[in-house]
């Protein structure tokens, strides 16, 4: 059962992130800026800030929940950490030492580090050095044979999973002395070196995207471009991998909404639900927005906040093309690029999530709106 709220913010949204109290959202409308919108009432959003520091498109945004900082990375190889001082967001440049574009970013669970995946086939782990008042980066240079498309932190704040366009998913240790030694629990990989590869998963024939850990850190999920999603249980010396092939177009990103349920979003514009049954076998359950079924239409209650809008442009290149194509169901019209949980990080169950998509151009008459949307799930 899904209740969907749709909001439009811009023509295309590259990436987005929610503030800790879920009242504000930071998004990149497919250009070099980051817009921060605040919700004033149910459907009314106001653009509060525009963060303009990058020279090229902003490819990743993450908003830390405890320290209220926004980190943005862009194709111009730079990254900024923005902190709210008074009413303004003040940027701090992070020297990533990258020589290619940065593709993705994520704060670690304790928010003392963040990881950046880049087109330079490296991953940067950045931490704050108190003495110099500076964010410093350490690079994981080895191992990746192609661009790193997605990064995900394990709940223990040390393990990092990465996916790359060489089709492999790898798990590294990002143990940094001085940052991680203070709270090393028993059994945590305190002895592992920084940048040591714990695991390499070669399940996909094609590019890999969208890796995520389950809330307990026991299971890893990532997608491959060959319309497959891979689940790895018991990540460690003897992992148990499962590949689930599904019909239709590949996914771009996944989200664990509980230990046994995953939502995948991608080129189908319709989020897919995968679940593991009691024996631990994962399979595809259903789409969230059914095209013909009235299940999603029946409960359009009004308690849901934010959504990103969808774009109903009707302009097409061919004037003579008859509209023989059936619309892929759901709220989005174009491929969904990211899915973000709405809720406290680290909570075992995610009740709501938002998806954002790249939309089409509007037609000349101005009563079209662009949106990306958010859907919330009642499961």
């Amino acid at each position, binding site marked *: 059962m899904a209740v969907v709220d749709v909001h439009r913010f811009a023509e295309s949204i590259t990436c987005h992130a929610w503030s800790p109290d879920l009242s504000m959202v930071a998004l990149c409308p497919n250009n070099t800026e980051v817009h921060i919108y605040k919700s004033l009432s149910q459907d009314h959003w106001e653009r509060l800030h525009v963060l303009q520091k990058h020279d090229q498109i902003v490819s990743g945004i993450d908003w830390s929940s405890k320290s209220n900082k926004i980190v943005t990375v862009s194709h111009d190889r730079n990254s900024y950490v923005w902190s709210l001082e008074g009413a303004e967001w003040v940027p701090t440049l992070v020297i990533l030492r990258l020589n290619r574009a940065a593709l993705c970013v994520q704060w670690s669970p304790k928010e003392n580090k963040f990881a950046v995946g880049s*087109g330079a086939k490296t991953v940067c782990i950045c931490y704050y050095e108190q003495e110099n008042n500076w964010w410093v980066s350490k690079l994981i240079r080895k191992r990746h044979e*192609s661009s790193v498309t997605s990064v995900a932190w394990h709940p223990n704040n040390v393990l990092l999973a990465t996916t790359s366009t060489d089709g492999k998913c790898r798990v590294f240790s990002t143990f940094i002395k001085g940052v991680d030694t203070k709270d090393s629990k028993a059994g945590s990989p305190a002895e592992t070196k920084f940048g040591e590869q714990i695991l390499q998963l070669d399940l996909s024939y094609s590019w890999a995207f969208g890796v995520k850990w389950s809330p307990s850190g026991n299971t890893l999920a990532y997608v491959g471009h060959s319309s497959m999603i891979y689940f790895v249980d018991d990540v460690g010396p003897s992992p148990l991998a499962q590949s689930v092939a599904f019909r239709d177009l590949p996914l771009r990103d996944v989200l664990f909404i509980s230990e046994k349920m995953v939502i995948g979003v991608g080129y189908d514009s319709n989020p897919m639900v995968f679940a593991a049954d009691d024996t631990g076998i994962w399979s595809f359950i259903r789409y969230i927005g059914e095209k013909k079924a009235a299940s999603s239409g029946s409960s359009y209650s009004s308690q849901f906040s934010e959504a990103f809008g969808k774009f109903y442009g009707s302009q097409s*290149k061919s004037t*003579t*093309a*008859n509209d023989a*194509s059936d619309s892929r169901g759901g709220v989005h019209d174009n491929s969904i690029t990211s899915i973000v949980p709405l809720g406290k990080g680290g909570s075992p169950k995610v009740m709501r999530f938002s998806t954002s998509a790249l939309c089409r151009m509007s037609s000349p008459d101005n009563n079209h709106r662009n949106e990306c949307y958010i859907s919330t799930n009642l499961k």
Partner: protein
Amino acid sequence: MANSLRLYLACIKNTLEAAMCLQNFPCQEVERHNKPEVELKTSPELLLNPVLICRNEAEKCLIETSINSLRISLKVKQADELENILTKKFLRFLSMRAEAFQVLRRKPVQGYDISFLITNYHCEEMQKQKLIDFIIQFMEDIEKEIRDLKESVNTRGRLVATEFLKQFITNDAIYTEKLNVRHHSSRFSASPSPSLSNFVLRRPGELLQIPAITQLQIENFYGLGNVI
């Protein structure tokens, strides 16, 4: 025959739906650049297997995909020399105006007649389904266009030849089936034998002296009645 066209187009449409999953991807080779990887081909891991769909030996479609771009090359059926020339000229006309089409490539890929280059930016701006419909419609239309052009060339050829040879018709001529007119009237004695090779356009005053031929003879001679 129409059935095989439907199947061919359906196959291409399905392949395009799968292939047109493009995303923004910055260049791995050059910093701050964003290039269509299918044209560059510098990183083989970013390219997918090209798919070749053949309707028959003469008609085929090559679809090459990469992470941020897709290239579709078409080879159009060309049954004879005339269609060859018409296709080349027509498609060259379109390719030179590639900017208006946005997804058209200015030069076709080697071995093909016309190529499209679709990038992730096109997919962001335009609807994917409509792009695919456009390509399929384009393929249908090309076939129709070339056929129409050929018909019009033949029609024009027939009209022009008719008009040209009309000038040789006079009212009081006696004609036989044979094109070599055997009998000359005395008026015509000065003119050379009106064999086929002697259809020389003379000065207007002398036109009447050239032996006349019926309209039917003209058509038969040029074989225009047999042109498709």
